[in-house]
């Protein structure tokens, strides 16, 4: 019954475009996000943050702030003992939420205040006196590996290598030296990408309430309320079961809301003040002190035979992790050459520390940077070989049976079909004008499964509550209701999906890695199938026949066999009505680790026009082709493709953290950190391919992330075709394009 294998069943509800259940709340202003909750007697909390990129904290004097009327609690690291018991990652989280002996980046929290209102809290911040001793800083990933660079985290320094180099993740197969020796043409280039932010429109926000009896509640905008619960409870010495975390509606996350930031401090302030505490980050704080993605610097080398067969490829990319180590380079190393079948390949991802905020996941984390380098290099290789860039990619494409660079052998995958769809797309034949160019690029993302539970309860009238523990950021409640309806054979409107708080369901992993619909969808299928078993038993009781004679079809129990031909089918509603007299409430549950997440590939086409006078690049036309496995709700699959492409376009053309010589962030607002607006973009055309994931009953693959991977490379290739200059640095902002045009004498 719990066999996750793909069966190729016919669908009635799956694949239709129903209205989302949270739509009305969201268009009427009724939906409650992180900052929209209040509690009786609540205080307002604010954080004091370091104005220095790197400084020793010699002394913090909070006495004046504490005495200000209306201030109810002030805390510093002194109020947060280390309870992490040697867990390095957890200690990093503690230190990131509040600086201990040193401030490690511009914006690092040094003290928190809770007061009766915002203006009192602001006054209190001004009364806190911090004595800093400024230390040398470094914010560039390559500079951080220079001999004279300050060591950001001595506890992570390893003998025999640079103190800011954390580790290297190396992946690949074959013998690359021999491979390059066999190559007729080799292209080797260096690239850089800027640091970008997920740019969710909703800032981090929470309402924390801790009682002296050790129980607590946290209302918070998060992608993972269970993870937030576990982390906060451990950092504050609370029992996990006594901290109830409720995920609010979430105003975008894209990976940035997978980790705690100021939430432990809000809880600590609430505990100290014994009052509910509301804490909302400003946009400036979001940019400076949440978790943007890595900036990178890399070398890519690819060699091919004259006929276009790629025989060797090497990538080495340094990922700037901020002030705390992550696994970002490792992910980059795994993804670099995943789209291709290359006999000799090596990809190395290097993790490096800098005086910048702790990096967090950002949609297909680490893949877009490597893809920028690899896809740009492949395009240059195609020019040197005189082979069409799409044909060159197709000639070397990964297929079922190809061994992925990180080990596994691919099952059925979609990269070749997406490239064929690109080749045959009318977009590829559209005419281009002066200063216009077209680019193509590919992308890969893993997708993950993970720990999941769900709870399906059938009410007395036969309507159904499905409770899940993954959050809904882009329409998941609609998709999950569709899945439950499909399994039970009832209408979509008869299923109501709720996101459970941490006290109502067992642990669920964070909604990351495009796992929400995949994993909770799988749990919903199996929970529904268990409920169907109960429904069949109840029907058997109502008919007084053996349960073996009952089958479930189209939302009704039917009695099998000629001897029961007088028995009319019992609908789910008929059975639900009698639940009280046939054994009590009818429910189905499923708790498991969802495995078998299918990898997802995409290929994109973009047309650009570059203005040689201003260096501005306009996107004229954009097409996304991606494998979804099976699109549950096509509208929201398209929405994921379009949103991911738009974020990639912003990354490619505009977005970047700009640090001054003083190590401070110079563009911590949407005015200067410019994400794409409506007039920057054309309509983004989408084509959903459905190559079933063999590891899911419906063939679902995660769809949320992959399409942020190709845009950087695709746009770089298009710019090169438009004005004849190759861009080696992202973002390809107007000043960089003008400089490149100038240097090329165009």
């Amino acid at each position, binding site marked *: 019954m719990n066999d996750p294998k793909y069966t190729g069943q016919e669908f009635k509800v799956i694949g239709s475009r129903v209205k989302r259940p949270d739509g009305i709340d969201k268009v009427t202003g009724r939906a409650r996000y992180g900052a929209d909750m209040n509690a009786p007697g609540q205080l307002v909390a604010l954080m004091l943050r370091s104005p220095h990129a790197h400084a020793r904290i010699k002394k913090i004097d909070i006495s004046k702030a504490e005495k200000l009327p209306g201030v109810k609690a002030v805390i510093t690291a002194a109020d947060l003992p280390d309870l992490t018991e040697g867990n390095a990652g957890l200690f990093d989280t503690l230190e990131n939420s509040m600086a201990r002996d040193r401030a490690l980046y511009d914006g690092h929290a040094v003290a928190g205040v809770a007061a009766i209102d915002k203006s009192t809290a602001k006054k209190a911040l001004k009364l806190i006196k911090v004595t800093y001793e400024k230390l040398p800083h470094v914010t560039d990933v390559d500079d951080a590996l220079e001999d004279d660079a300050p060591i950001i985290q001595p506890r992570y320094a390893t003998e025999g290598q640079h103190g800011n180099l954390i580790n290297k993740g190396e992946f690949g197969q074959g013998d690359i030296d021999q491979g390059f020796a066999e190559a007729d043409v080799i292209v080797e280039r260096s690239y850089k990408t800027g640091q970008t932010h997920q740019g969710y429109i909703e800032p981090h926000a929470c309402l924390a309430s801790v009682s002296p009896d050790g129980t607590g509640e946290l209302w918070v905008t998060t992608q993972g309320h269970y993870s937030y619960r576990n982390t906060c409870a451990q950092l504050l010495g609370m029992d996990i079961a006594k901290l109830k975390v409720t995920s609010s509606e979430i105003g975008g996350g894209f990976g940035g809301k997978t980790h705690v930031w100021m939430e432990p401090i809000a809880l600590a302030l609430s505990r100290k003040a014994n009052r509910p505490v509301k804490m909302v980050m400003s946009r400036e704080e979001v940019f400076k002190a949440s978790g943007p993605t890595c900036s990178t610097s890399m070398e890519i080398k690819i060699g091919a035979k004259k006929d276009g067969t790629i025989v060797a490829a090497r990538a080495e990319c340094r990922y700037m992790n901020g002030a705390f180590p992550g696994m970002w380079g490792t992910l980059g190393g795994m993804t670099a050459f995943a789209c291709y079948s290359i006999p000799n390949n090596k990809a190395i991802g290097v993790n490096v520390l800098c005086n910048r905020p702790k990096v967090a996941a950002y949609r297909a984390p680490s893949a877009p940077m490597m893809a920028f380098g690899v896809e740009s290099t492949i395009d240059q290789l195609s020019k040197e070989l005189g082979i069409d860039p799409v044909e060159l990619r197709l000639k070397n494409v990964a297929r079922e049976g190809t061994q992925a660079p990180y080990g596994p052998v691919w099952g059925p995958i979609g990269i070749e079909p997406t490239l064929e769809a690109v080749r045959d797309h009318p977009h590829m034949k559209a005419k281009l004008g002066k200063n216009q160019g077209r680019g193509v690029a590919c992308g890969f993302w893993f997708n993950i499964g993970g720990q999941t539970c769900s709870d399906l309860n059938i009410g007395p009238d036969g309507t159904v509550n499905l409770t899940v523990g993954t959050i809904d950021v882009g329409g998941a409640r609609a998709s999950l209701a569709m899945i439950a309806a499909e399994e039970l054979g009832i209408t979509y409107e008869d299923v109501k999906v709720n996101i459970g708080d941490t006290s109502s369901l067992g642990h669920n992993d964070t909604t990351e890695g495009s796992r929400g619909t995949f994993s909770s969808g799988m749990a919903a299928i199996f929970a529904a199938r268990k409920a169907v078993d109960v429904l069949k038993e109840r029907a058997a009781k109502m008919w007084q026949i053996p349960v073996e004679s009952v089958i479930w079809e189209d939302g009704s129990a039917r009695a099998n066999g000629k001897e029961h031909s007088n028995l009319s089918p019992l609908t789910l509603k008929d059975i639900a009505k009698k639940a009280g007299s046939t054994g009590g409430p009818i429910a189905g549950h499923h708790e498991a680790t969802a495995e078998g997440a299918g990898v997802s590939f995409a290929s994109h086409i973009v047309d650009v026009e570059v203005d040689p006078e201003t260096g501005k690049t306009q996107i004229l036309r954009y097409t996304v082709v991606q494998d979804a496995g099976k699109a549950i709700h096509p509208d929201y699959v398209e*929405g994921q493709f379009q949103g991911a492409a738009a974020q990639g376009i912003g990354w490619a053309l505009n977005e970047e953290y700009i640090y001054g010589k003083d190590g401070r962030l110079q563009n911590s607002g949407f005015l200067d950190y410019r994400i794409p607006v*409506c007039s920057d973009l054309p309509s983004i055309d989408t084509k959903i391919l459905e190559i079933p994931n063999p590891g899911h009953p419906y063939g679902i693959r995660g769809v949320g992330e992959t399409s942020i991977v190709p845009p950087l490379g695709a746009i770089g290739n298009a710019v090169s075709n438009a004005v004849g200059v190759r861009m080696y640095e992202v973002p390809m902002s107007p000043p960089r394009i003008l400089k490149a045009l100038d240097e090329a004498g165009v």
Partner: protein
Amino acid sequence: MAGVHVTTTINSDPVEYVCPADESLMDVLRDRLGLMGVKEGCGTGDCGACSITLDGQLVCSCLVLGAEAEGRAITTVEGMADGQNLHPLQEQFINNAALQCGICTPGFLIAAKALLDENSDPTETEIRYALAGNLCRCTGYDKIVKAVQAAAKDLRK
């Protein structure tokens, strides 16, 4: 700071409040009056999530002082539906899947209504420029533009 007494009209209802002279209208609407449909994305007028109309004019409520609302007429997203009947823009945002996370949606609805009040049959380009003051990070804007086009058509009927 001494409070300012303000008498104003919000979504056609008479409203009075007292706020500090330096408090933004956004904070008044959200924190004093409970109109949480007004969202804060930046507090600096860059994202449009707190869009409202003030005497029919589209503004970011984070850039207006609460005291400035004296004697004026404010519309927020809470005032868009007519009882149980959603405004055509609200209907079409749902029908066209024009929202994902939904945090920017109230601002987009207000901005789109301000556009359609002025121009009942805007071109795609006009829509894209009229909505350029509102940031959406989820959708890539495609389905938002289509929803506004569909609502404009409904409203012209």
